[in-house]
């Protein structure tokens, strides 16, 4: 279509249209074009219905596009700090401040507050892991790191290696070097810091030591110091989030950072369970440090001394608090949230602003708690939201305790003994089947058997006669057979009585002469047995 035509016809049309509908201004406005700038020819004044329609549609499309663009822009201006940053820097106070001065960094902390979709906005996460004698867990830990779906270059890794007697340090640097020289650039992480600091821990790191009740207070305080040192040494102004993760997590969703971040809470923890061997029930809540405060807990806290630390999960301090771990439903909605007062440290995602504001892991008894539980308490005190996800579960490594190990050893011994027995049985069986010619021996066997039975029967008949003459006077109306039948307590084994303990053949059993078996021996009764009333009652 030709533009001049369109322009012209449009003017015409609009003029006539507004004449019909509205007042002076619009008329005048339209005639402005007509008089001043638009040349007209008679043939153009014709009405072009077809064209009018398409022009109309086009105009509407333009308008719609413009409108949509405006809305999108306005919305992204509201939502995206980076866009706002560029826009504001163009019109507002110069954000190019301090750019020309060597050795100076300028940060507007309000750009690093953290949002629900940080991975889209380039929000940096500080990923923190305190390590001690963790050599065994490192390869697994790095496989988790590799699998993280959050953009790796936005994750700054920081480790604290303290009081390690094994090869943690060397293995860690090797693995990090390997990671950073990966052919896939998307595998590279951001800044990496490894801090070495020994605190002189007196308490061992194996499961029974570290979870013994008496060891918990001082141990937690020491862990708190380690966490604080790591955090303070590596937290930079440009971090929006801080993620704490223990090295001994066995299974976790690869999108855990995004999953937790989406909730946009100040502090958020998943549920932590651990898998167990089947003889212990397959699975078990692991992290009992995530809980809601209870009345009992507060009462208990009020009774304790200033420096005492309540440690959750021990019978010594029964607090009756609702634990995040116990509220898990394997089929529950993973997005369900629950307010917490204490948190566990296996996996914590927190906004960096929480730590900037001063929240930390108390290395002293803060409201009767230390370390991560104290951190939860402190965050609540500072009015931050502390949330747990009861149905979003990560799995901690199962480390057998010394009791478990003992039990496992016993089980192993039993298993070996059982296998040995089975093997012997099987061997005996094959020996029996292979070693004997059963057909050949059968005749002699039958012959021998018959002779034995005959002899036994003869002997019994003699004894029976003797007993009948003995017993008539004593047992008033009671036959000896009734004695042998047993009672409510079960069949009686009259081992030492006459007539008992004699081997019988199948024939006799069929005739009903065998009453029962006891201890591998056979009780015998010559008379066929009919169930009495008493017996049927207890049958």
């Amino acid at each position: 279509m030709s533009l001049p035509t369109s322009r012209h016809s449009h003017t015409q049309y609009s003029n006539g249209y507004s004449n019909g509908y509205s007042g002076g201004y619009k008329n005048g406005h339209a005639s402005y074009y007509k008089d001043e700038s638009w040349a007209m020819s008679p043939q153009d004044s014709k009405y072009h219905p077809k064209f009018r329609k398409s022009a109309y549609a086009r105009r509407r499309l333009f308008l719609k596009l413009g409108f949509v663009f405006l809305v999108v822009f306005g919305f992204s201006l509201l939502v995206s700090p980076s866009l706002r940053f560029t826009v504001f820097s163009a019109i507002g106070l110069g954000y190019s401040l301090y750019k020309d001065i060597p050795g100076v960094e300028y940060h507007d902390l309000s750009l690093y507050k953290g949002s629900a979709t940080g991975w889209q906005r380039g929000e940096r996460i500080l990923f923190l892991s305190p390590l001690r004698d963790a050599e065994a867990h490192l390869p697994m830990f790095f496989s988790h790191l590799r699998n993280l779906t959050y953009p790796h270059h936005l994750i700054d890794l920081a480790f604290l290696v303290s009081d390690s007697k094994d090869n943690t340090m060397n293995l860690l640097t090797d693995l990090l070097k390997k990671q950073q020289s990966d052919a896939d650039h998307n595998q590279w992480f951001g800044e990496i810091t490894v801090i070495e600091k020994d605190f002189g821990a007196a308490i061992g790191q194996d499961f029974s030591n570290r979870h013994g009740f008496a060891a918990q207070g001082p141990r937690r305080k020491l862990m708190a110091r380690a966490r604080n040192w790591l955090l303070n040494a590596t937290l930079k102004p440009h971090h929006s989030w801080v993620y704490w993760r223990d090295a001994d997590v066995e299974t976790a969703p690869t999108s855990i950072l995004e999953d937790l971040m989406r909730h946009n809470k100040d502090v958020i923890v998943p549920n932590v369970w651990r898998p167990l061997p089947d003889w212990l029930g397959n699975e078990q809540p692991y992290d009992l440090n995530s809980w809601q405060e209870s009345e009992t807990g507060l009462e208990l806290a009020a009774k304790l001394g200033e420096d005492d630390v309540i440690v959750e999960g021990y019978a010594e301090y029964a607090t009756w608090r609702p634990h995040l771990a116990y509220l898990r439903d394997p089929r529950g909605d993973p997005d369900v949230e629950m307010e917490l007062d204490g948190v566990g440290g296996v996996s914590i995602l927190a906004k960096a602003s929480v730590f900037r504001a001063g929240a930390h892991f108390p290395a002293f008894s803060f409201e009767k708690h230390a370390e991560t539980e104290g951190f939860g308490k402190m965050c609540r005190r500072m009015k931050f939201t502390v949330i747990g996800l009861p149905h979003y579960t990560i799995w901690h490594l199962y480390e057998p305790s010394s009791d478990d190990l003992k039990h496992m050893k016993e089980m192993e011994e039993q298993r070996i003994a059982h296998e040995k027995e089975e093997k012997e049985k099987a061997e005996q069986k094959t020996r029996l089947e292979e070693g004997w010619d059963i057909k050949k021996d059968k005749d002699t066997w039958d012959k021998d058997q018959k002779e034995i039975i005959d002899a036994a029967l003869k002997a019994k008949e003699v004894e029976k006669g003797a007993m009948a003459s003995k017993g008539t006077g004593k047992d008033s109306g009671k036959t000896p057979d009734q004695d042998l039948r047993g009672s409510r307590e079960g069949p009686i084994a009259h081992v030492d009585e006459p007539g008992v303990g004699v081997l019988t053949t199948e024939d006799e059993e069929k005739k009903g002469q065998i009453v029962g078996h006891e201890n591998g021996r056979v009780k015998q009764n010559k008379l066929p047995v009919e169930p009495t009333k008493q017996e049927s009652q207890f049958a």
Partner: protein
Amino acid sequence: MGTRLQRSSPFRLLFALLGLLLFLWWMIQPSSHSPRTLNINLPDSSPPTPTAALTPPKTAPGINVISMNNLTATANPLKNSERLLILTPLARFYDEYFDNLLKLNYPRNLIDLGFITPKTHAGNIATLKLQDALRKVQHGPKKSRFNKITILRQDFGTPTGQSEKERHAMKAQKDRRASMARARNSLVFTTLNPTISWVLWLDSDIIESPPSLFQDLAKHNKQVIVPNCFQRYKENGVWKERPYDFNSWQDSETALNLGKTMKDDEILLEGYAEMPTYRALMAYQRDEKADKHVEMLLDGVGGTALLVKASIHRDGAMFPTFPFYHLIETEGFAKMVRRLGHQPYGLPNYLVYHYNE
């Protein structure tokens, strides 16, 4: 509505759209060729773009291994080349403050500076003034440059009203000091890098101190030590001085008992007639004739000038933004230091001077 839409020509619409696009381009355009990004501190050194933070770097960032086992904080910091971090919450910029800062005679290559300014008009002005002052220093000879300087803008609001009267109104104190505490925490926990041994808190209104302030305080080799803060004033044409900072004190029975009767979220304040605490204030313990280096034990400290071993902050000692044992900010800090098992000290005869408004 329908009529108006119909009356505009496609050309006009085109113009409008073009105009809009031009406007948008103009708004976004500066960032496309100037080195401005959301994340200024990208480990990547390649020229950043607005989306630099969203794309992976071109070279893999390296691995820093830092041992903090040999980090010392001793009575003679210069001998071990111990690094000092001077932190200042900067509500207002005074030239006298900066001049005094430049007079400190500890080697500047061992000094890091940290400032935090509120996002208010006053904060903007302070930021700009500081920029000018720092530009002069950092463009000077290499020897006189500070090792590193970090300037932060607060990500939280400040209670308004910074005039002397408003600032000291008892009701406003809690909010003001909570905000101040938060500023201090934001500053120390983001600038305390692993090589630093000492942290010196120096308020922006400290305009006079001995040039050897740091060495003199470090000489005592205490975890936390605070000098006495006075103020010079003119009376009938004669310069006199008077105590200024009342936050350094030894606790009293009265104050402790008062604390016991208070609710959890109430705070004890010093220097208000409505709340007599009868604490032993360091401000009043000054003896002009006595030795400058006399020490005294303290239970609360002021923050106008305060030297702290970095390890204390690393252990977690911070400035409570909430009533901690009914104490807040620097006084709460002293309490937290004591909860962590250390003792703050004061030097009643060693003076620094506060600006007189």
